[in-house]
């Protein structure tokens, strides 16, 4: 059976298997987005939810001013603490962010983030696709700069200005669109700032048709933060180099352009599981408590050199 699968895979290594797990992820993403935006009547009234559940930060990027939002945005809340008139260390928000990161890492991006779901849906639209290009590697560093400069340093220097939310966050712009559709008094206040944010959102939307998750790859500060936890999180990926037949199917299946055989717990991996499904030898697996007991490609080559 395995030989048959391998033969088929060698014929077309990049071919994505029709897996129930892929559509299962879409279902989980949709349910997560619905739960985080359960105040559906807000979309018609143009008013935001004011219940006590907004004390809790949601794990993904979901603006608290979105009419549907029933939780608080972690990045907005973090900036609120850092950029207050009197500095307060954000114990609660940072604690929640570290909790989500240590437990899930970037599973949050792959399964729980509503803005990630939006980008996934946009990428499904048939359009010109160019997911691998030269500057991709360098653009990835931008999100760390966004986290450091726009989310931490500037709010600390300029009080009462949530720089990231104000000038960049496309999730806030979609919230603004929903609010202004339903609320005429807000619609009258649309000005230059909204025009700027609409341009940013437009660029993200159009590029999402061409590149897989451009916002997550290049700009999202939350993805940058959770990325640091991918190596240590309880949810991890395990690569068994002894099972690997070097067919490169996983590398070709990865839309985040990660090589899971070299870096199974890369900071860029959003745990979508495409590589796991693509592997004909089941050399990759991911889940809670998947440790590092298996040998990586690097360790295997070191052992091989030592044997020689």
């Amino acid at each position, binding site marked *: 059976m395995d030989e048959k699968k391998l033969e088929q895979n060698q014929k077309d290594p990049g071919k994505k298997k029709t897996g129930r797990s892929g559509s299962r992820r879409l279902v989980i993403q949709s349910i997560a987005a619905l739960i985080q935006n359960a105040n559906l009547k807000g979309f018609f009234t143009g008013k935001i939810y004011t219940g006590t559940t907004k004390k809790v930060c949601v794990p993904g990027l979901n603006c*608290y001013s979105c009419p549907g939002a029933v939780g*608080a945005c972690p990045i907005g809340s973090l900036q609120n*603490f850092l950029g207050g008139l009197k500095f307060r260390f954000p114990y609660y928000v940072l*604690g929640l962010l570290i909790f989500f990161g240590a437990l899930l890492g970037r599973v949050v991006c792959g399964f729980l983030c509503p803005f990630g779901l939006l980008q996934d849906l946009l990428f499904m639209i048939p359009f010109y696709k160019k997911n691998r290009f030269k500057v991709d590697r360098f653009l990835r560093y931008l999100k760390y700069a966004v986290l450091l400069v726009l989310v931490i340093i500037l709010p600390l220097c300029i009080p009462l200005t949530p720089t990231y939310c104000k000038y960049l966050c496309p999730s806030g712009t979609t919230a603004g669109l929903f609010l202004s559709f339903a609320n005429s008094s807000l619609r009258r206040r649309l000005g230059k700032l909204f025009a700027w944010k609409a341009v940013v959102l437009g660029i993200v939307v159009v590029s999402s048709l061409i590149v897989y998750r451009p916002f997550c790859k290049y700009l999202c500060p939350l993805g940058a933060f959770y990325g640091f936890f991918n190596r240590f999180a*309880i949810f991890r990926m395990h690569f068994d180099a002894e099972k690997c037949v070097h067919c490169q199917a996983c590398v070709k299946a990865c839309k985040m352009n990660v090589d899971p055989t070299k870096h199974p717990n890369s900071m860029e991996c959003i745990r979508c599981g495409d590589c796991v499904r693509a592997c004909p030898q089941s050399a990759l697996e991911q889940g809670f408590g998947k*440790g590092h007991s298996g040998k990586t490609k690097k360790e295997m080559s070191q052992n091989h050199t030592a044997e020689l």
Partner: protein
Amino acid sequence: MKSFFKENKVAILLLVGAAALIFVGLFRSQTSAVLSKAVRICMECVGLG
């Protein structure tokens, strides 16, 4: 079970640290600060001012 703790010791330490931070935040009523910001429309966030 023992190997689970061994292989996830960093994550477990981070989770304990995170729980401690959350409790300090709760003790300092930081949830109220989060709530008061989240229940009002953030004009900067939605691009209105």
